[in-house]
């Protein structure tokens, strides 16, 4: 890879059947490029939570992955309602998701915290009435801070 490798997908708002397809395509791309599976999973959690936010909160948008030797940059962009208070939105448990979304197992207010936990850097630019851009970066040499620990059961 000399040039950055870029893939971009359109995500439809309120389409709960297709939601996750873009993230899965990105995950397959990363695997195909030989990215280690722990990093693929971190990227997958980021893109999937971001994709669900596009579907649930933003009337759709685009999901983009740019891969270089050093890093993966993941961007979710929309022209939805925007986020008035990003710090508040980042708080675990904060959610404006409607009930029909909660019934699907989403809307626990853990999406943005999950994204933050899996990203090395996270930037959210949002303008109310204009839209939101979320940009998360994972560095290949960064220490792998997630991926789910395992514990022995105390039987």
């Amino acid at each position, binding site marked *: 890879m000399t040039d950055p490798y870029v893939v971009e997908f359109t995500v439809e708002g309120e389409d*709960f059947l297709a939601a*996750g397809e873009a*993230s899965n395509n990105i995950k397959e791309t990363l695997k195909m490029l030989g990215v280690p599976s722990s990093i693929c999973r971190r990227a997958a959690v980021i893109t*999937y939570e971001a994709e669900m936010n596009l579907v649930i909160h933003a009337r759709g948008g685009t999901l983009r992955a740019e891969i270089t030797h050093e890093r993966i940059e993941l961007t979710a962009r929309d022209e939805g309602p925007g986020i008035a208070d990003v710090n508040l939105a980042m708080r675990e448990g904060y959610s404006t998701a409607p009930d029909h979304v909660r019934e699907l*197992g*989403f809307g626990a207010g*853990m999406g943005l915290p999950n994204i933050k*936990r899996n990203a090395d850097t996270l930037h959210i630019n949002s303008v109310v009435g204009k839209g939101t851009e979320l940009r998360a970066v994972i560095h290949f040499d960064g220490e792998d801070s997630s991926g789910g*620990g395992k514990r022995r059961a105390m039987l």
Partner: protein
Amino acid sequence: MNLKTVAELLGADVLCISGCLEEVEVDHAYAADLMSDVLAFACPGSLLLTGLTNVQIIRTAQMLDIPAVVFVRGKRPQEEVVKLAGQVGMSLLVSTKSMYETCGLLYKTGVFPCDIPERGGESS
């Protein structure tokens, strides 16, 4: 424990098999009805137990390389869910037992829980 043993232990129906059940090993499990919870805490390759049956369960599991999902309380997913699982090579089981009992049976047999990092600070 391989998936065939899991299915026998739970008396579960197998809806969808990817490859051979005996060849899929799961030694950890995670149980939740919140997908963000699964995305935050389920360890890769673990078995997912859930009371929800929508298509997003399969998507969520797929993100974490989860090889199989057990639906509890005898809830059966719709055809499109089974179809997607088949396409992505995921096995689906239905246990007629409650979430509690299903988890208990697996725990008792030595299936490990996924580690939950300390709360409060940044998890790492």
